[in-house]
């Protein structure tokens, strides 16, 4: 081989990518300018120019909105109230205060009211109780959310069984004056029914129980659970009793939303199965129920459950208000839940139903062991989304005189010692940011779940 000097003997050095392709300029070129640099035809040219103008407009309005919020929340804000002037610190001289210039957010007001926003009027000395519940909730949910944490199933079970009871006892203080006889009757009939169902299934107690043993046993277990809850609720733990009237703020928001979602799950499953049932009455009832609740606004449901319920019940019946709101919310969301679950049920291929029948499983068995586990897994993101809307809808419980976060914030506006022109804007800002943080993180989690659950279809 001739040693020709024009032949390269080594690789050319690697050059850095052209400047126009890297850094901010490159990013702009690739992701922004590429949509507006086509001038090959008059039509394309006009489109490019329009795109450019629109982009600039969007940027301008986006940034000025952002600046408006920063300006209000930080730059012009009043941060502290060292002299305890209350309304004076956030008002200008001509409004009767000491601030100079335009006033932004009034943070001392939030400081003064923050306990009210979180716990409502929960007694100061007992605040450790809601705090403990919040901590347990955060720990439990955190555990379940982390994909690789050990014993997730166990923790989830605890969160669905022990946690609600513990929360109920801690928040109310237990020692509820429940009727002893009622409890005993519940417990005894629970034991009897469970035993009868159990023995009946073995054919000891005749034909009828052989056929209905499963149902009877289930009923017995339900009675036993109710009796147990009643028992635990009536024990005196030495905790001060805190009536639900004293709950408020974020605490009520969380209680309503969480209870609503947990209670609506079983009801939703029943309704979804009912809607797909082969028995016409069940189908008609389920459809009527679902479409009724989906068709009326939540505020009318809450109005009914708060002020009209006593008209429908025997004279003198007294129900806790929070409980009423919970029932209203649970019924309302169960209709949405049912539609979610129906979607899941429809997504299960027919072969699964047929396979279950071919194995000789009964309707109950095939639902419990084959269909529901698959269907529920598919609908988890949908459930999270229902939960998000429920969480936002808790703002409506104000209508029935319960003070959730927004209610607490609004009621704090009526305090004359903090009445300033910026009070309401500050309060609403706090409220909006809190709701946003909760809902946004939940929606992120739902997206994450969706991705995770779709592994089977990835190519």
């Amino acid at each position, binding site marked *: 081989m001739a040693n020709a000097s024009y032949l390269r003997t080594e690789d050319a050095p690697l050059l850095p990518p052209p400047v126009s392709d890297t850094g901010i300029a490159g990013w702009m070129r690739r992701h922004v300018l590429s949509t507006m640099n086509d001038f090959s035809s008059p039509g394309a040219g006009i489109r490019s120019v329009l795109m450019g103008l629109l982009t600039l407009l969007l940027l301008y309005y986006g940034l000025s909105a952002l600046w408006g919020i920063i300006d209000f929340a930080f730059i012009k804000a009043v941060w502290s109230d060292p002299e305890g002037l209350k309304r004076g610190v956030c008002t200008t001289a001509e409004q009767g205060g000491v601030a100079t210039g335009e006033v932004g957010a009034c943070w001392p007001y939030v400081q003064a009211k923050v306990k009210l926003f979180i716990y409502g009027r929960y007694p100061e000395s007992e605040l450790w109780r809601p705090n403990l519940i919040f901590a347990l909730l955060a720990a439990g949910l955190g555990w379940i959310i982390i994909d690789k944490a050990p014993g997730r199933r166990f923790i989830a079970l605890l969160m669905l069984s022990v946690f609600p009871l513990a929360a109920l006892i801690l928040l109310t203080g237990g020692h509820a004056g429940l009727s002893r006889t009622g409890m005993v009757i519940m417990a005894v009939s629970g034991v009897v029914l469970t035993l009868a169902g159990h023995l009946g299934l073995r054919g000891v107690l005749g034909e009828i129980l052989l056929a209905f043993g499963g149902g009877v046993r289930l009923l017995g277990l339900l009675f036993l659970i109710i009796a147990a809850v009643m028992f635990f609720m009536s024990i005196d733990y030495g905790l001060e009793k805190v009536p639900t009237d004293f709950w408020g703020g974020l605490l009520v928001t969380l209680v309503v939303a969480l209870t609503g979602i947990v209670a609506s799950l079983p009801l939703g499953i*029943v309704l979804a199965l009912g809607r797909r049932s082969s028995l016409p009455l069940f189908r008609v009832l389920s459809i009527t129920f679902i479409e009724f609740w989906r068709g009326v606004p939540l505020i009318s449901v809450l109005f009914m459950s708060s*002020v009209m319920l006593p008209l429908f019940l025997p004279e*003198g*019946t007294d129900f806790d208000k929070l409980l009423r709101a919970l029932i209203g919310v649970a019924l309302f969301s169960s209709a949405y839940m049912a539609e979610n679950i129906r979607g899941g049920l429809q997504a299960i291929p027919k072969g699964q139903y047929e396979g279950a029948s071919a194995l000789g499983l009964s309707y109950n068995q095939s639902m419990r062991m084959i269909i529901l586990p698959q269907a529920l897994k598919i609908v988890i993101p949908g459930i999270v989304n229902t939960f998000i809307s429920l969480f936002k809808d808790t703002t409506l419980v104000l209508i029935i005189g319960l003070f959730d976060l927004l209610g607490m914030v609004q009621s704090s506006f009526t*305090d*004359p010692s903090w009445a300033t022109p910026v009070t*309401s804007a500050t309060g609403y800002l706090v409220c909006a940011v809190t709701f946003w943080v909760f809902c946004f993180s939940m929606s992120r989690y739902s997206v994450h779940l969706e991705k995770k659950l779709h592994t089977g279809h990835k190519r």
Partner: protein
Amino acid sequence: MKFKKVLLGLAVVACTASAQAATTLETIKEKGYLQCGVSQGLPGFSNPDDKGNWTGLDVDYCRALAAAIFGDAEKVRFTPLSAKERFTALSSGEIDVLSRNTTWSMTRDTQLGLNFVGVTYYDGQGMMVPKSLGATSAKELDGAKICVNTGTTTELNITDYFKTHNMGFELVAFEKSDEVIAAYGAGRCDVYTTDRSGVAAERLKLANPDDHMVLPEIISKEPLGPVVRQGDDQWFNIGRWVYYALLNAEEFGITSANVDEMANSENPEIKRFLGKDDSKFGEGIGLGNDWAYNIVKLVGNYGEIYDRNVGPDTPLKLERGVNALWTEGGIQYAPPVR
């Protein structure tokens, strides 16, 4: 299967929930507290303070009622109600007494199945306008845009007033008083109207209270008072006499500070009032004989309540005016305890 379960559950609830019909007083004593309907926040009358405790004139009436029944002014729970829900809540039994700056009118007294126990605050409807409007009288308001609270007598009065004086107007009716004043503050309306006490209270929420003035006209009578359900005379009497007790205490000069001294007074009227002789006025209406003593001791007399909630030393700065006792030129007058 599941449906059967649900139904059985309902049946259980139904059985445990049935209760015997009882008088309002018995029911209250049994549950251990009084349920009182108040506003969702009207400074001076019923609004939660920094700690979230309810304060105000209407609230104190309920505390006095609780003091008379239980000898404990804290055995009362408050249900905040919007103007449009209040009567439904009372007639459905949701609350025992409605003490929510409610105007006594014939329709309400006779057609809704309710009874007004008295007038705890004599008010009239007032109007506030921006000074820049240059109006000095309500008669100059032809063509005004008016912000008002929905479901109130105010809403009806203003319609009548403008119709009577043949003036045109536009009515913007909000559900909550917060939004009414906020909309007025934002310039949506020329006129803000509600009871005069309310005007004084809500004015504090404006950016520049001094830029606004209250017009001299009082366009309606607004006797505000607590309401109970019709059909339970005993409860009606209790509600009525608790209010009279507040007035009588002020007339006798009994305050929460000196009530223990006064209990030893030789004045037979005072002794009778405080239940220190053997006349059994308390038992006559189903209460303890120290009912009036408890009211004054735990809540105070009418004057004290007025001064601490709406009086000249509060941000509302309302003079007693017609709400002074009859002995001092007002029209608050209570029948004697005899």
